[in-house]
């Protein structure tokens, strides 16, 4: 499902003396449907950079990032948008939403984007929010003022609303209590069971051991000059 081949990345900071910072070189790995793979490596090794390249948020300099039928490294914006709508989900560490949009709408949005009926989408959003223990009195409010843990659960509900064949998880259990952490791990296991290919960053060692099939040490892709 996910096939990364010889991907490299460097940042050129034109306005800071054109400093060129190589951050990744020769990254290659594959993730099969139903498999969960953890990216590991010290802070600064490039885990998040790699994740962002998989999502098309950062531009890969060279190589291929094949997700389903699309090569994210060379696809047009329109193809990446289509991929994100139907095939590639992303649970980021931080919730980035429009002010004034209610929590239940934030969660239902990915479903509406794929053409779900509004009432079905809202019903599914409510099931997910209930499962993640987000109090019902908060559903009609915008999540912008919620606590860190609540925002993260809204983020997870949103990321799992639609059954994407490929899923990227950036620290999905970071600020959760034990109960909610267990719920999220169950949801990840269920996504694997339905055949989703998952790439995740987990600083929570026990969580990683529980849901991930193998680890990829990103340090192996760090250019020598930086390491």
């Amino acid at each position, binding site marked *: 499902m996910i096939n990364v081949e010889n991907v490299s990345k460097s*940042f*050129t*900071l*034109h*306005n800071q003396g054109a400093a060129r910072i190589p951050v990744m070189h020769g990254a290659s790995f594959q993730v099969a449907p139903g498999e969960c793979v953890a990216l590991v490596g010290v802070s600064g090794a490039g885990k998040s950079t790699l994740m*962002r390249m998989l999502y*098309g*948020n*950062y*531009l890969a300099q060279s190589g291929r990032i094949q997700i389903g039928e699309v090569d994210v490294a060379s696809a047009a*914006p*329109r193809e*990446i*948008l289509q991929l994100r709508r139907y095939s590639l989900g992303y649970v980021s560490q931080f919730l980035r939403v*429009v*002010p*004034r*949009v209610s929590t239940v709408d934030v969660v239902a949005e990915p479903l*509406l984007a794929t053409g779900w009926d509004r009432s079905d989408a809202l019903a599914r959003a409510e099931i997910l929010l209930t499962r993640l223990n987000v109090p019902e009195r908060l559903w009609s409010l915008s999540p912008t003022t919620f606590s860190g843990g609540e925002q993260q659960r809204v983020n997870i509900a949103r990321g799992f609303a639609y059954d994407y064949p490929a899923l990227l998880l950036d620290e999905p259990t970071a600020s959760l209590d034990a109960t909610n952490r267990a719920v999220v791990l169950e949801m990840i296991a269920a996504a694997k069971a339905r055949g989703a290919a998952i790439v995740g960053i987990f600083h929570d060692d026990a969580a990683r051991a529980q849901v991930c099939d193998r680890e990829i040490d990103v340090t192996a892709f760090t250019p020598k000059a930086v390491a």
Partner: protein
Amino acid sequence: MTPLLQVTDIAKFYGQRIGCTGVSFDLYPGEVMGIVGESGSGKSTLLNCLAGHLTPDRGSVCFDTRADGLRDTVSMSEPERRMLSRTDWAFVHQHARDGLRMNVSAGGNVGERLMAVGARHYGDIREAATDWLGRVEISVDRIDDRPTAFSGGMQQRLQIARNLVTGPRLVFMDEPTGGLDVSVQARLLDLLRGLVREMNLSAIIVTHDLAVVRLLADRLMVMKDGHVVETGLTDQVLDDPQHRYTQLLVSSVLQV
């Protein structure tokens, strides 16, 4: 899929000076494209060339018309182009007074565009106007007031209602939130975002405000000195800008 708008090598010169040059892109149905750049970068010149307000010196702007498929609107006859701008196209001006008739009631402003496409039944027109005022969050008891009695934010929302009432397929917006208070901007953006989704609108938005495109645009075009210096997916261009100028633009935004 046929693009809704196919722009090829547009150029506009003011004497020796470049307005914009070498601009080409395809816009597909349901896509929202943002054009960003500083004042004088050529973004408004480009928008006006696309919308038929200015005649470009070179290039073509092909629109997927309902009747005949892709047609070059630059070489189209004036009446045909005017018909497009009343039906399938809409233009939201930065200053609401440029897009509204200030001495006609709010309801009349919305109704007028309907009448331009042939609506004649007073009850139907009034009903559509009432519905649209509601959608843009203007209280129905203001329907008979003139826009001169409205606040800036309300005027802008009225202009949007007037533009969208005929169900256009392509909306051009020139700094739609310019000159409004931040809180008013947020409300307007939220409204626009909802309408774009709900009506599956295609739109081209010119702005110098990166927050506006972050919220509304699927993809971005960055302009500098009349040239397009960078294009791409909105979040990619803003989070990983490649061109020197885009990096400067993104790093110049103050974080709050």
